[in-house]
């Protein structure tokens, strides 16, 4: 039987991102997670999370490496069984209804899963056959997704000859080939240069215009999280905040000032004594938040005894949001968690 969830009700061409939830029926929920946990031995990767993703939404999971993002996305994609709790994707339980879930989702993994010794077209054909795309639909759909990512002209080239960005685009095209209702992107732009990253985002945003699709992505790039309709910030296996990027930034509300001084220790002490400001060292700079950065900087120069070498003032970004919720910048966490991840990867082996 053809499984075709009623995505394309006549005349309801979706325009722009999904609005806020006016109503929340099962029809409108793409992903629903409740009390989800996952343990690996004594390591608790996911420690009881709840959230919902609405249909048509671009939902981002933001957090440092090892925060539980990949584990969560793996559970949602039915690749990992949860220890407890439930996850419903595209209306089906990820544990009891694995195949149906898989048919309705597209996956783009962090590491490439292309056969680089085949051409782009051969890779897509393979996928189409594996997912049972009706034969008559294969050729037109293939052309459509390849044109969408700008690779139609290169379809007969071996994937080996593709650049990293092109390979990622091809993977996105492949993930879309069987017209899934939800596209999962695990770190879609990791390891790509900034230009390529922004071009990938152009394709993703374009895709949102053209397909009736929900996008669930994980990232640890703050600037990427801005492309999402809603973000969940995850740290140590728990969701610490979940909202639109704007609302999250508004909740922080302060400008971030970073200064480099001759003696950071003294500067931190003086900031505390004279301004009552709590500053800390992040990324080697004295970092603190104030209501209005531009007005504060002149006072800083006038009243601080320690010579200041440089100053930067930034409007609240998701970086600040992350910091205000977790007490660390996302880059702070990288150094320590990289070791933990490596240890974990060795323990469980790479799949």
């Amino acid at each position, binding site marked *: 039987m053809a*499984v075709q969830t009623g995505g394309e009700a006549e005349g309801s061409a979706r325009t722009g991102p999904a609005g806020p939830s006016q109503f929340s029926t099962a029809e409108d929920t793409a992903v629903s997670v409740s009390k989800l946990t996952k343990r690996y031995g004594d390591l608790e990767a996911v420690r009881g999370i709840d959230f919902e993703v609405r249909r048509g939404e671009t939902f981002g999971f933001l957090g440092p490496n090892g925060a539980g993002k990949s584990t969560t996305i793996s559970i949602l994609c039915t690749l990992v069984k949860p220890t407890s709790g439930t996850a419903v994707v595209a209306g089906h339980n990820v544990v009891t209804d694995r195949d149906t879930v898989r048919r309705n989702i597209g996956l783009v993994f962090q590491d490439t899963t292309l056969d680089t010794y085949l051409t782009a077209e051969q890779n897509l*054909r393979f996928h189409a056959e594996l997912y*049972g795309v*009706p034969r008559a639909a294969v050729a037109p759909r293939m052309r459509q997704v390849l044109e969408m990512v700008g690779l139609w002209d290169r379809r007969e080239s071996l994937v080996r000859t593709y650049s990293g960005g092109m390979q990622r685009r091809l993977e996105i095209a492949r993930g879309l080939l069987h017209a899934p209702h939800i596209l999962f992107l695990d770190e879609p732009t990791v390891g790509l240069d900034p230009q390529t990253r922004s071009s990938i985002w152009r394709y993703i945003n374009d895709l949102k215009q053209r397909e009736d699709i929900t996008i669930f992505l994980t990232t640890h790039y703050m600037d990427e999280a801005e492309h999402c309709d809603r973000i969940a910030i995850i740290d140590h296996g728990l969701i610490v905040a979940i909202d639109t990027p704007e609302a999250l930034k508004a909740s922080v509300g302060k400008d971030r000032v970073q200064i480099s001084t001759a003696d950071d220790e003294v500067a931190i002490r003086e900031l505390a004594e004279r301004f009552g400001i709590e500053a800390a060292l992040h990324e080697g700079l004295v970092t603190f938040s104030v209501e209005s950065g531009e007005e504060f900087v002149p006072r800083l120069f006038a009243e601080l005894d320690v010579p200041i070498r440089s100053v930067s003032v930034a409007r609240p970004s998701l970086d600040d949001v992350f910091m205000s919720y977790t007490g660390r910048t996302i880059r702070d966490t990288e150094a320590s968690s990289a070791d933990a991840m490596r240890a974990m990867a060795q323990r469980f082996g790479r799949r």
Partner: protein
Amino acid sequence: MATPTTTEAAAPQGPAVQPDLTDLIRVAVPERGLRQDLRAASVVWRRELIRFRTDRLRMITSLVQPVLFLFVLGTGLGALAGHSLPPGVSFKTFIYPGIVAMGVLFTAIFSAGSIVWDREFGFLREMLVAPVNRGAIVLGKCLGGTTVATFQGIIVLALAGLADVPYNPVLIITLIGELLLLSFTLTAFGVMMAARIKQFQAFMALTQMLVMPLFFLSGALYPLNGLPAWLTVLTRIDPLTYIVAPMRRAVFSHLNISPAALHALAPGVSWFGWTVPLGLSLGIVALMGVGMAGIAIVEFNKTE
């Protein structure tokens, strides 16, 4: 832009392509079923053929070893062994069936090893997350390996004349049939190993370690009769023995030699003096292949 013409329902599921407002091609992915599994198995099989076709180097390198054994070892040892062979029968002819089997051996196992390779480079994941029966994927892989290995064996078969083996159609068809069986069993063996082994180098090291004993114990290079007891036991355990013996029987029954010489050179496998019939011999190989493919399916169903 692609014009998604509404097709005459090719799939029994009904027309699945219908252009909508945004010229978006809707695809209805059908329920899992036998039909889907067959399509999946078939595409995995076809990929194996594409990969083999584009890998000319592998085709040539896989030939080096059989050619080396047949002509260098065969000629060299032939000078020594020639005295114990009936007139008109060369040592090259004697080892030829085993060498054909050898041509298949490496290709089949290497082909199965590509699973480990795929695992390392991620492509295996693409296959394992698909909404199809894992068994279909394992089967497709086994059949793919069977096809390319048999093809490789046919190239060695083409050298028959150089080993004084006649190009008899019945003989060639018999040998191809036996090669198919052997290739399937060997690929299934490789796939079973690949289910557990995560690193390509480890796979190659382990299979290299197993392949040579399998080959040497198969009676490919010497007759199975009159061996010391320990070697007799080992040769009877080696599954390759049960295919090399029928292949040799086939070759020698198409040579112009006396029945006594035929019996001496290609007596078939015997257990405690009882000659294992051809059907049972082939049945053992087939059963092992099916059994190992079954284990491989179970193993792959367990992962992820």
